[in-house]
């Protein structure tokens, strides 16, 4: 990869250890993606915020880094492990976890990030103009940015996005260019898909696709289904982009996604027919999704505990518009700054199984939290789990 003299000097440590480390990461990721140079980026979104995932080594690394590092561009961050406003209600979470999570939060804030603690930055902010280069580490956000937001990003790693935030640059990899080769086309063969089906389509696409896929046989789905698809796709593979095409446009390799393929994924992730509690919001819910939920819950109440995850910014907007009243009256617990995935809020001593409509959530609930998963679309959750 070609570096400018200034970038070369930073890589050689002439501008301090932080920039040396950042450029070392950018060079490695540039080599990994066959990029010939670095390009400026306008917005970085970082993962690696939840103490549950980055652990002591991550907490120490960020504490050291924050003594010197400062972000150079607009930088937003992923969810933490829990909601500080509600942590006293979760007795099983120990003080050590709370202390370490606070340290991670403070390190990011010290580096100048916008404390969004959200996996859905695209629901909080207006997106920049078409073709703007960004660096998003959260996989569902990267896929959303490339596929629906008209932005350009790699499916960044926690460190490559952090290096981009600190330098304002990222490797000019294939995904950032316009002339990407014709990708695999997935032919959607499932009729009237709901958001859970779209999540499974995404999960399937992530498994069979390389860096990008075309999807034929669907008209533009609603935003909930699109988010579900981004979440599913980001979880299962390396694919970072999808594009809806008319079936007559597809010229390259093709693969079908029908009932059989969908049932296989369902059986992989659905391990029980009943959940002890319900979680909604992976990715975190948007204002529109909260509005829909409040309408669906009118006059009904949850029969069991239901955790509802949205970003702080969205919760504040929902409160001012009174969308939260109906949800909380129905027994829903609205939690912010965290999400279904990898949260320690689910007490595995008390919870054996979780009902959710999220494929991404299901994957992490099953494989990381270690609980059984019951998958249902939202309409079915309302039908079965409320009265």
């Amino acid at each position, binding site marked *: 990869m070609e570096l400018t003299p200034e970038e070369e000097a930073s890589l050689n440590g002439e501008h301090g250890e932080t920039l040396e480390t950042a450029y070392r990461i950018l060079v490695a990721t540039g080599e990994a993606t066959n990029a010939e140079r670095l390009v400026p980026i306008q917005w970085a979104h970082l993962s690696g915020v939840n103490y549950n995932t980055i652990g002591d*080594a991550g907490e120490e*690394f960020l504490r050291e880094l924050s003594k010197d590092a400062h972000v150079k561009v607009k930088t937003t961050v992923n969810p933490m492990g829990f909601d500080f406003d509600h942590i006293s209600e979760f007795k099983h979470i120990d003080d050590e976890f709370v202390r370490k999570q606070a340290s991670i939060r403070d390190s990011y804030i010290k580096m100048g990030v916008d404390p969004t603690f959200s996996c859905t930055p695209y629901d909080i902010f207006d997106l920049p103009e078409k073709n703007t280069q960004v660096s998003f580490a959260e996989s569902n956000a990267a896929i959303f940015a490339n596929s629906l937001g008209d932005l350009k990003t790699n499916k960044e790693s926690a460190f490559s996005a952090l290096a981009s935030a600190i330098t304002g640059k990222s490797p000019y990899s294939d995904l950032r260019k316009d002339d990407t080769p014709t990708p695999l086309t997935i032919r959607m063969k499932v009729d009237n898909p709901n958001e859970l089906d779209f999540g499974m389509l995404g999960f399937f696409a992530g498994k069979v696709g390389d860096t990008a896929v075309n999807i034929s046989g669907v008209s533009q789905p609603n935003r909930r289904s699109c988010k579900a698809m981004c979440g599913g796709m980001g979880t299962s593979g390396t694919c970072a982009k999808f594009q809806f095409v008319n079936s007559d446009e597809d010229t390259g390799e093709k693969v079908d996604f029908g009932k059989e393929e969908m049932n296989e994924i369902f059986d992989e992730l659905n391990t029980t027919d009943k959940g002890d509690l319900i979680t909604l919001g992976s990715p975190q819910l948007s204002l529109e999704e909260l509005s829909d939920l409040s309408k669906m819950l009118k006059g009904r109440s949850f029969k069991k505990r239901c955790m509802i995850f949205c970003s702080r910014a969205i919760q504040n907007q929902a409160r001012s518009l009174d969308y939260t009243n109906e949800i909380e009256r129905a027994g829903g617990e609205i939690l912010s700054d965290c999400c279904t995935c990898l949260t320690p809020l689910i007490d595995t001593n008390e919870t054996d199984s979780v009902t959710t409509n999220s494929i991404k959530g299901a994957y992490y609930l099953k494989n990381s939290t270690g609980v059984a998963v019951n998958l249902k679309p939202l309409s079915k959750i309302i039908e079965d789990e409320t009265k």
Partner: protein
Amino acid sequence: MSKVIVQGKAEGTILKTSNPINFLGAVDKQTGVIRDKKYDIYEKSIKDIVLVFPHGIGSSVGAYTIYSLKSHQSAPVAMICQKADLTVASGCALANIPMIVATEEEFDSLNNGNYITVDTESEKILN
């Protein structure tokens, strides 16, 4: 010709898997033991070995797992992949673990249990 992603020199015994690795979740970030039953190297440790695998998958936070392994002295001494991905590349870059993308022929010739030297400065990188 193999491609250097992260420079360095290391030697060790090969542990090879045919499974793409999701570092977040599949690998214990303190001990380096594979804890996902779906992997053909389940319950094996990746500590102090030359890890040979197709490529990384899944969460972007897996880069922190690689860094954590290094901090706990449980990291592989080098990694050799078929295909580079950003999570493994950036994790190795920060943790100073040499990382190579091997040609198909080289990748196929790497066998479990063999002792190998990785030297990115040498004319023949894998020996």
